[in-house]
């Protein structure tokens, strides 16, 4: 069976079992390894967060047959390969919000969804937006700081 959907603005058609998870197809078939499996596919950790029609979802709990005709954005879609980092990515680097990096793609995408809906979020809104993204080394204070920085930066650009 063929599943068609858009990934990072590009239409893809994949011949596969529609019951495979979106996470598996992104990583194995499309070589987009930014989304990670952190909790064994339980939807507990957020490391596999991608944007589905602009909203953060755990790709381990979405079957690829469920994204037919829909729009998926992964961390790879945020900045062109070899090009400059996206302002949110830059803010994470500058704020020291990246250590091992495993949770980073998911956290950056959760932040992106927040900032596209709410350009000037409160700390509470930032913490709520990141509540589904577990981090075991950097800690959340620097991530909150990074999202604030990114909001300022994006506000200047706008």
């Amino acid at each position, binding site marked *: 069976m063929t599943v068609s959907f858009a990934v990072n603005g590009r239409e893809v058609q994949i011949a596969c*079992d529609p019951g495979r998870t979106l996470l598996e197809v992104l990583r194995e078939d499309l070589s987009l390894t930014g989304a990670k499996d952190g909790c064994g*596919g339980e939807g*507990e950790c*957020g490391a596999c967060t991608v944007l589905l029609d602009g*909203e953060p979802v755990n790709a381990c709990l*979405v079957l690829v047959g469920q994204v037919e005709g829909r729009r998926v954005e992964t961390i790879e879609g945020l900045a062109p390969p070899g090009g400059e980092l996206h302002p949110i990515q830059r803010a994470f680097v500058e704020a020291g919000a990246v250590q091992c990096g495993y949770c980073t793609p998911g956290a950056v995408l*959760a932040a992106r969804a927040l900032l596209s809906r709410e350009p000037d979020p409160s700390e509470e809104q930032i913490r*709520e937006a990141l*509540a*589904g993204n577990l981090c075991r080394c950097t800690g959340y204070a620097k991530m909150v700081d990074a999202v604030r920085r990114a909001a300022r930066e994006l506000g200047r650009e706008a």
Partner: protein
Amino acid sequence: MPSFQLHSPSDLAELTRLLLETEGTVLAGGTDLLPRVRRGRLCPAHLVDAGRLRELRFVRREGPEVVLGALSTHADLSSSPLVRELAPALSEACASVGCPQTRNRGTLGGNIANASPAADGLPPLLVLEATAELRGPGGARAVTLPELLLGPGRTSLRPAEIIERVRFPAPPAPSGQAFQKLGRRNGMAIAVASVAALLVLDERGRIRTARLALGSLAPTARRSPAAEEALRGAEPGEAAFRRAAAAAQADAEPIDDLRASAAHRRRVLEVLVRRALERSLDRAARGRRP
């Protein structure tokens, strides 16, 4: 993930036919079902995805009632101005589910059909006296939530029958409602205990109607008739709320599990009941509808 066949019907009739033919399991948001399949607790040969039935994802007012499509997500319900205005307890409960990723996928229908004693959406729906409209091979029927919820993970849904809509009367003014939940932490927490309350006041400011429902405190989410009786006709305030909190114990049957002990749940119950009632009164008194 263990293997199963995924079916993706595009309308309700096809969904019903596939569920009947394959004896499959209906898949909505998948936030609860897919982890269970992965852990091997559920081994369906067929999953029938309801996700393409966009007509089951809506929030609307129909005269004196509020009607919610079963595929409305927790995010839809927590952000809906209509739900916030007429069912703030439900809005608060949906906002407290899991995390944004879960709320963007998890659905109202799934929350009900899972029949978890800890489901956040159920205590608010119980105090709103919501009716679930079901559809199956035998046609459509409507049941109350207490008729639907039989036990932990058990419902009175018949084979190939699904929840299509949920409907409840918009509460009269002046009334107020609230949802209170205790988890082990703030984000990604399943309820240790939860309480929803709804108070309707009479013209003298006394309690005309009180409804109170408990979550994670019995085999199913359930109303507390004892607490409601203790409140009826009373002057709303600390004394009445303390009596109601004590009375609610009679309707709780908490268990020890990995999240909390039964004794702790009983203690927490009193606090949550008082807070939910105080907040409901506050909202009723502000004349906000409801």
